[in-house]
């Protein structure tokens, strides 16, 4: 298990806006290689690889072999808040859609 230094590595990794954008792009895609990310972002593949290395050391992304390349994916974030949000938002839409249905029946 990583020691107390792990959060520092995460903060350092996330302190850089380029890396935050990289991670957000990766989160949206689910998984991608450095070459794929470089095509989407205004960065060279070398720069993407360097930043991915920092994110991987902080445990924010995992790497896996993809042929001759390496594919990265974000590690799962804690779920509790996410589940809470999905439950609340789901309920809101249940109520809104029910109201929409009533409104259309008029």
């Amino acid at each position, binding site marked *: 298990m990583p020691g107390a230094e792990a959060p520092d590595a995460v903060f350092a990794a*996330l302190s850089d806006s380029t890396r935050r954008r990289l991670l957000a792009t990766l989160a949206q895609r689910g998984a991608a290689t450095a070459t794929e990310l470089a095509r989407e972002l205004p960065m060279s593949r070398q720069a993407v690889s360097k930043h991915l290395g920092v994110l991987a050391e902080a445990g924010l992304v995992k790497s896996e072999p993809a042929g001759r390349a390496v594919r990265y994916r974000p590690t799962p974030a804690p779920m509790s808040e996410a589940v809470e*949000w999905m439950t609340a938002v789901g309920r809101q839409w249940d109520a809104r859609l029910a109201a929409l249905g009533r409104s*259309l029946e008029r």
Partner: protein
Amino acid sequence: MDEQEITRELEVQAGREEVWRHLTDPDRLSEWLADEVSVELTPGGALHVWGSDGERRTGWIEEVEATRRLAFWWQSDHEQEASRVLLELEDAPEGTLVTVTESRPLATLELRAAQLYRATRGSTGGGPTALAGLARA
């Protein structure tokens, strides 16, 4: 990955044009979405939604495809994270199928940063518990 996204569907006995009016006309929107809605129906246009509970949401329109698709981003005053809403209309046997998808594409990142921040700041208080949570993350 753990996509933060919910989807709901509703089939209504009305044509797509009529449903579309309910999704885009502020007078119709105030019948079901919130108390008061103002919307500039063009990509980049502003969106303001005032709820009955006093909650206010602001956002902007991402995509408009008349009678088919409406995508926008919004964020309430007390939320730190904007979410994306996609409303899609499809013909159904007896009317229209309305599908809504709300997601937080950037939340995974924001959530992790916030939890780490709290965990390190609160390490003298509930430290072990917070760190155990981190280790599981």
